[in-house]
């Protein structure tokens, strides 16, 4: 089992390497790699359904117990792994066609496969330390993939924004894990939340990290910016898997967050669900509508996790992953047909590309919670779970009405009568095949609720008559509002187009104080640290050095001068010998010779 766990994580990476080197046949290699990589995940699902559980752990720091890294096979991780692998397979197959005319296709496909590796590591991680490692890798790869298209002007900005926003929220994860380790002495899953301030830090930090990764209000802005990335990236990362990591974190930490942290998460989710739906209604770009819709649906999952527990949230996560990826893949097909995703440009695109329209319709019906499509059952489970909580229930129903409304609005634009403009698009058949498979999945997944709950050993999602009726009424109200041409008051519409001013608010509340603090710190650094301490130290040191040098010079110079004077004196003495008078030289020669002779004679005698 452990070998299969490793295979789930590492096979995508090997496939990425092979794809990167495959050249023109990268699509085939990537598809084969993704398919092979999905096999162990499915085997693990079957094994887990049969009660199999496994963990692999390695001591990371012997000196610090409780900091093991490892992989685990349990019901939750295997469901996530299968979701990731299956959506990943469909998206990689689709991307082979989507990038048909892209010179850097091997790099794009390899990037998707490498992301699959990181995501599998995240969901299969055993313990928060391993989860944190893959959590960061996922964030970094996401930024890289958003900025893949170098011709796209918004790509780098969107990537930086996505990275910075999620990173800022990830600080919560770090704080939570530090507090957890300080309080509980371990980072293993399923430990008790420590009491007091540490417990508060754990709760707030984990919820904040989940909010950032899952683009919950008010941090949802980065997801719209991330739409600058290629559409397969949006489908895989920003609808089905990566943004779901926040929900996964909530579900995985369910015991740890019991009580008020889940209550906060539920409120955040409920508010986000409505805010996302409102924003989606006002967007002028198909992918941005879908991004806002993702935000809204992830908010519903937060409510599900808070009100109904793991099974409810994960059921909606899986159903939404299939449905939203389907929508994105259809959007990518329209994008190729019309070379853009602005709704105005896509007017009537559905009539030209019926296959894409059919796929889009299936995804939209599912996400809009129309029976019998998958997300109807999962969203209804959330509605039923929220029944005991009047505030959440109202917001969930409102979000449901919004969901029906924005999807119907987009579908009407796509189906509007328009002049026929349909270029031949390379890779279209591949894209349609992959998207169609996902669409089929988003139909069939409605049946997965009860088995999923059994696997997660939770209560099967209860669907009450009340919830069904309320949901259907809400959806009908939303759809009816669109059909009757209801328009929101101008200020509301403007606010929705501007993302409900969340960005402006974040700029005021977060960015401005941080920038001010940075400026003050910079001034403090320049004036005090740099000016007074560093430069002052330098100046004093220089002065000391100069004094030292003068002292040394005086001493050494004195010695050198003294030597020169001594040599001079000796020279003056010797000069006197050299008179220039030859007679004296001759006399000295004679006397010297005589002295030598006398010495020799003495030596001989003695």
């Amino acid at each position: 089992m452990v070998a299969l766990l490793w295979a789930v994580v590492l096979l995508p990476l090997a496939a990425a390497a092979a794809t990167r080197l495959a050249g023109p046949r990268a699509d085939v290699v990537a598809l084969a790699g993704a398919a092979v990589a999905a096999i162990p995940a499915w085997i693990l699902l079957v094994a887990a359904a049969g009660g199999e559980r496994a963990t692999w752990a390695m001591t990371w720091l012997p000196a610090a117990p409780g900091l093991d890294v490892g992989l685990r096979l349990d019901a939750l991780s295997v469901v996530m792994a299968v979701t990731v692998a299956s959506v990943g397979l469909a998206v990689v197959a689709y991307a082979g066609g989507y990038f048909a005319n892209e010179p850097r296709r091997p790099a794009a496909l390899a990037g998707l496969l490498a992301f699959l590796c990181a995501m599998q590591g995240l969901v299969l991680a055993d313990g928060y330390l391993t989860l944190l490692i893959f959590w960061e890798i996922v964030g970094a790869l996401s930024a890289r993939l958003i900025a893949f298209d170098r011709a796209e002007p918004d790509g780098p900005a969107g990537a930086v924004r996505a990275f910075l926003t999620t990173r800022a929220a990830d600080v919560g994860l770090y704080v939570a894990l530090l507090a957890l380790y300080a309080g509980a002495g371990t980072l293993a899953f399923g430990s008790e939340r420590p009491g007091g301030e540490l417990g508060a830090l754990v709760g707030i930090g984990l919820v904040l990290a989940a909010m950032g990764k899952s683009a919950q209000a008010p941090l949802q802005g980065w997801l719209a910016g991330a739409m600058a990335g290629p559409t397969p990236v949006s489908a895989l990362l920003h609808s089905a898997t990566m943004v779901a990591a926040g929900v996964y974190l909530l579900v995985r930490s369910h015991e740890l967050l019991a009580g008020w942290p889940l209550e906060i998460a539920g409120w955040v989710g409920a508010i986000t669900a409505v805010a996302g739906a409102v924003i989606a209604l006002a967007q002028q770009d198909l992918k941005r509508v879908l991004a806002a819709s993702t935000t809204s649906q992830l908010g519903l999952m937060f409510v599900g996790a808070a009100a109904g527990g793991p099974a409810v949230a994960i059921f909606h996560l899986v159903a939404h992953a299939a449905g939203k990826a389907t929508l994105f893949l259809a959007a990518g097909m329209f994008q190729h047909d019309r070379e853009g995703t602005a709704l105005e440009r896509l007017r009537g695109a559905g009539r030209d590309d019926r296959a894409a329209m059919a796929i889009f319709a299936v995804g939209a019906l599912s996400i809009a919670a129309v029976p019998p499509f998958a997300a109807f059952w999962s969203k209804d489970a959330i509605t039923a779970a929220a029944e005991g909580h009047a505030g959440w229930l109202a917001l969930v129903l409102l979000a449901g009405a919004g969901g029906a409304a924005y999807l119907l609005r987009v579908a009407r634009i796509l189906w509007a009568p328009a002049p026929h403009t349909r270029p031949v698009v390379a890779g279209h058949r591949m894209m349609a095949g992959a998207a169609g498979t996902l669409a089929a999945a988003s139909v069939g997944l409605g049946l997965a609720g009860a088995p999923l709950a059994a696997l997660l050993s939770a209560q099967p999602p209860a669907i009450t008559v009340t919830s069904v009726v309320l949901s259907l009424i809400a959806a009908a109200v939303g759809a009816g509002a669109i059909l009757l041409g209801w328009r929101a008051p101008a200020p509301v519409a403007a606010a929705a187009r501007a993302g409900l001013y969340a960005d402006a608010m974040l700029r005021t509340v977060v960015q401005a104080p941080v920038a001010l603090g940075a400026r003050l710190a910079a001034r403090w650094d320049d004036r005090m640290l740099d000016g007074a301490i560093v430069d002052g130290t330098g100046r004093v040191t220089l002065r000391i050095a100069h004094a030292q040098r003068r002292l040394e010079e005086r001493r050494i110079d004195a010695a050198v001068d003294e030597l020169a004077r001594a040599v001079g004196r000796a020279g003056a003495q010797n000069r006197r010998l050299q008179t220039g008078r030859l007679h004296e030289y001759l006399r000295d020669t004679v006397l010297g010779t005589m002295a030598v002779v006398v010495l020799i004679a003495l030596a001989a005698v003695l």
Partner: protein
Amino acid sequence: MISLPVVLAVAAVMFGIGLYGVLGQTNTIMVMMGVELMLGASMLNLVGFMRYAWPDAASGAFFVLIVMTLMALEAAVGFGLVISVFRNRRTAELDDLTELGG
């Protein structure tokens, strides 16, 4: 045959006269003549000892020949210098030539 002491005595006298010439004369020519006398005395010694101690060996005679050659060279260089100095200075007195004094 002249006995060795006679030869040595003559040589000693010659050396003494030469030494006096070198140390006592002020004219450069005279000093050089003193040097010649001293060299002559030492040659006389060489020849005398050769004849007395190793009558069959020729090395003493060769030494004398070498010294003679040196004397000729020395005289030629010395007289050349003296003539050159005299042309410039109109003097050959040794004690007037003290430019090399330190």
